[in-house]
């Protein structure tokens, strides 16, 4: 797939977590505007390999916006300039030929760089492991309507569950705060009957883990909501605050 877009890429290159990184500049020619941002990187990497150079490491998996692996900070925005899309869904037609594009990894002390544009997001896994689960045996699928759930709650829980855990909220936040992620995970469970059993300990444990991982506090700037590829709402953060303070004053632990 050849095209007529010529771009200058400034890409963060870093060998591993223990070395200092720096920007490398690449001229990428003949790019089609129908390529995704990651396909453009594939083209660049093939050329680098053909030239006997080290290809640029970047995270990717499903390439259809549902896995949450891609994580490029493009021209000052996580997942690039378009709202509501991941990097893999960002097409080169969103850029102008001749443009210089700066690509950086997510920057947060809780997301250390593994290599180039790849960061270690296992801190998110540990927040989930601290309380983002249901330990009651749910058994086989229930008969329809055996568990009455108001439509509004089901919709809100589903909207929160749309979080793919990519970390764009942390990348966008001036405090590198993980509140939008953590609140989405708390919300999806607290809104459903299955999540009630551990409701009083969940928020406390997940927030404690979030703090321990070195994420910042919330300034309510709303940058996370604006940059989230799944458009997770700030209402979840308010719900997390309610869940947390409710748990703090009423839990027995």
């Amino acid at each position: 797939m050849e095209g007529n877009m010529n771009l200058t890429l400034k890409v963060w290159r870093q060998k591993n977590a223990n070395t200092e990184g720096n920007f490398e500049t690449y001229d990428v020619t003949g790019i089609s505007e129908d390529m995704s941002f990651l396909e453009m990187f594939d083209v660049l990497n093939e050329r680098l390999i053909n030239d006997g150079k080290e290809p640029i490491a970047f995270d990717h998996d499903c390439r259809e916006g549902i896995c949450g692996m891609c994580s490029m900070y493009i021209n000052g925005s996580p997942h690039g300039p378009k709202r509501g899309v991941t990097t893999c869904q960002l097409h080169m037609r969103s850029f102008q030929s001749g443009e210089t594009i700066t690509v950086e990894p997510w920057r947060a002390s809780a997301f250390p760089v593994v290599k180039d544009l790849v960061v270690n997001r296992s801190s998110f896994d540990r927040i989930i492991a601290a309380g983002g689960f249901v330990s009651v045996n749910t058994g086989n699928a229930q008969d329809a309507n055996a568990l009455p759930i108001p439509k509004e709650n089901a919709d809100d829980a589903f909207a929160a569950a749309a979080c793919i855990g990519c970390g764009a909220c942390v990348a966008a936040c001036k405090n590198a705060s993980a509140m939008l992620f953590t609140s989405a995970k708390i919300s999806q469970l607290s809104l459903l009957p299955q999540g009630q059993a551990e409701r009083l300990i969940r928020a406390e444990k997940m927030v404690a883990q979030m703090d321990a991982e070195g994420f910042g506090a919330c300034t309510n700037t709303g940058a996370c909501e604006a940059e989230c590829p799944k458009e997770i709402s700030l209402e979840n953060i308010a719900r997390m605050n309610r869940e947390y303070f409710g748990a703090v004053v009423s839990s027995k632990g």
Partner: protein
Amino acid sequence: MSWVTKNLSSSLGRKLIMAVTGLSLVAFLVVHCGINACIFVNDGGETFNAAAEFMAKNFFIRAAEFGLFAGLLLHIIDGLVLWSANSKKRPVKYAVVSKTNSTWYSRSMGLLGTLLLIFLVLHLKHFWVVSRFTDHITSGEETLFQEMKETFQYLWVVIVYVVGCISLSYHLLHGFQSAFQSLGWNHPKYTPFVKSFGAGFAIIVPLVFAAMPVAIYLGFIQ
């Protein structure tokens, strides 16, 4: 650590402290603005002086003053602790940062708060120290209204006060609605009201405050 201190020092607990102290400072602003606006009656400061004397002599108001300073101090210290902790969460900065995803004043609450603090030091020195720790006013040598007129005859003082009011306006523009979000108050019925009321409050109250030194300097208040 007890469960109280443990949870109040968590990231969410610190935000709760910011919200509660912030909203109590907002409540103070209403009283402060209302009483000072008495100068606009333009009766030679009679109404204003009477209101000021009531505030100075009422036992409950004086007791609340301790609460006010405790809240103010807590708001400042907690804000500085949050600012310092948050600034360490991204050791390697971005080379390019898009600024379209949030307002500049929501990202600059620490800076606006610091500007307010600098203004507040001068402001307390002008009026609070004079009326509480000298007998300048209590001896009847001068009224608080005369003190106000004297203070605001200097242009640089008026400029500092107006800049202080502009900082207050932007601080409130974000802080008012942000406090409700931190308290978990986000609801389709009330949040639009909180946001528009907060915006109105953030514009009107500092505007009334700023009008005082300006009006006195220009000689509108006799």
